């Protein structure tokens, strides 16, 4: 079969790391759900900022600062248009984790004892621990929509959890372990019937499909830049303007204020009200460039290419003797978790690394899920649009060797 909607050979040239050797083998990078590689365009934009107009934003009345401010604000606009949000609705944070912590802090003022928060059993710790700790502090009830045996979300169980006390529904848009994509639009619709606020942790989907916050009808949506070709240390929180306007800021200090006296402060306009202190300017600018890059490749192209490659990988992996695959029934996914019988996932990852193949092994920041499924961990490959069928073939050959080694 042929996976070729994109000129992958040309695309690969944009990513310097992809031509590296690891342990005397050509790097095969299959850990994109952890972080993606960066195209030259992004690296160059970061370097350009530091070499040509390094300065603080929103402060200096001088040429460099004006340029930095312009570029940093431009990046917000690019991200806003990328997800069909308004400029005031896009807050730069340091990543998904901070975005969700911001929400857990700022929304807590609206919550009272016995209010309920619904999550799913497939959350990354980033969308679990902030709510768990908030629930403890404010005596809230935390509920988890179940995962079914086929690694998809039990929507009936989710529905049964909704009631008048449900105030927040915060769900992973796609599982970082199984690649399961949750029907966030449907979840929003159901949760809104109870006037609950809906939050999507879209860290795993933002780089793989077109996200339209209006169409999904979510109240908040969070993602990380580094999983979508941008530098680390930059992420996004989208929030509906009406909500952001009335919410309390998370961090206080410079840049987030309009007016300060010794007694009182007035908050700055959106989105700056939520961006206290000097932001991560270079990474923010890099994120804007990453978004441009993704738009040029085309989100629909990326989606179909990675889905096809995922299908190819799944079929090839079935050739490995003793492999146990944990893929969601009936879903197209580019994240595949598996185990080899009798071999710990860390051994798999160590041995693959010796052949230049980078995968993730362990609990994937989803320990409660692993415990529920009685797994010590899994090996996980996660594909992106610069990966190829040849790389999958190489992986499968190496896995077969590992199986023989442990026989």
């Amino acid at each position, binding site marked *: 079969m042929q996976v070729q909607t994109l000129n992958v050979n040309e695309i690969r040239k944009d990513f310097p790391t992809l031509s590296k050797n690891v342990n005397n083998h050509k790097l095969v990078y299959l850990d994109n759900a952890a972080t993606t590689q960066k195209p030259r365009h992004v690296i160059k934009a970061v370097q350009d900022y530091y070499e040509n107009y390094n300065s603080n934003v929103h402060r200096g009345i001088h040429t460099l600062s004006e340029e930095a401010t312009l570029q940093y604000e431009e990046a917000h606009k690019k991200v806003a248009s990328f997800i069909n949000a308004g400029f005031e609705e896009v807050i730069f944070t340091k990543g998904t984790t901070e975005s969700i912590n911001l929400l857990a802090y700022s929304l807590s003022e609206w919550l009272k004892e016995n209010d309920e928060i619904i999550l799913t059993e497939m959350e990354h710790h980033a969308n679990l621990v902030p709510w768990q700790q908030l629930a403890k502090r404010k005596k809230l009830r935390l509920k988890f929509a179940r995962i079914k045996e086929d690694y998809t979300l039990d929507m009936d169980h989710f529905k049964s959890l909704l009631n008048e006390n449900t105030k927040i529904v915060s769900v992973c848009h796609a599982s970082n372990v199984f690649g399961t994509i949750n029907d966030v639009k449907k979840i929003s619709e159901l949760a809104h019937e109870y006037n609950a606020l809906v939050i999507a942790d879209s860290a795993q989907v933002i780089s793989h499909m077109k996200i339209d916050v209006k169409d999904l009808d979510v109240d908040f949506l969070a993602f990380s830049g580094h999983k979508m070709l941008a530098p680390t240390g930059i992420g996004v929180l989208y929030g509906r303007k009406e909500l952001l306007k009335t919410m309390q800021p998370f961090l206080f200090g410079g840049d987030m204020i309009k007016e300060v006296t010794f007694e009182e402060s007035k908050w700055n306009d959106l989105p700056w009200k939520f961006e206290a202190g000097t932001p991560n300017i270079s990474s923010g600018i890099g994120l804007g460039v990453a978004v441009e890059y993704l738009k040029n490749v085309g989100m629909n192209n990326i989606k179909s290419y990675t889905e096809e490659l995922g299908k190819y990988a799944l079929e090839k992996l079935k050739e490995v003797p003793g492999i146990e695959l944990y893929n969601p029934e009936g879903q197209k996914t580019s994240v595949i978790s598996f185990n080899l019988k009798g071999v710990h996932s860390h051994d798999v990852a160590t041995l693959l690394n010796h052949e230049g193949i980078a995968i993730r092994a362990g609990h994937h920041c989803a320990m409660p899920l692993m415990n529920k499924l009685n797994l*010590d961990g899994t090996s996980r490959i996660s594909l992106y649009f610069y990966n190829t069928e040849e790389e999958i073939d190489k992986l499968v050959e190496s896995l077969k060797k590992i199986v023989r080694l442990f026989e």
Partner: protein
Amino acid sequence: MENLSQNYIGEGIYKENILDHFKNPRNYGNLDNATIKFKDSNPLCGDVIEMQLKINNGMIEDVRFLGRGCAISQAAASMLTEEIKGKNIEEVKSIDRNNIIEMLNIPIGPVRVKCAVLSLIALRNCISNIKNG
């Protein structure tokens, strides 16, 4: 017939003896009349090791271990039990992480070192509990 080098992954990083100890762990199981036991785990990987010692006159008369996890953690535990059996406690106290890495005889990166030393940590806890107990 396939050539061995094509067949062999990792250019021997998992040396035969590691695989041998992993597949056929020495001194594995429960020790009746253990003087002291200590179970430790590495939450990051899910490796678990329980060391069980029978001490007599300051000597490790017998030792067993229980556990599950990666080849490095299990092989290291198996090798360590062979190393300490019949030795006196003072001798065993001087075993450190470098000795474990020497026993394994493979290059170990910073992440996997935790797997390699899990049994050593369990052993040290056993010994310090004897003193306190």
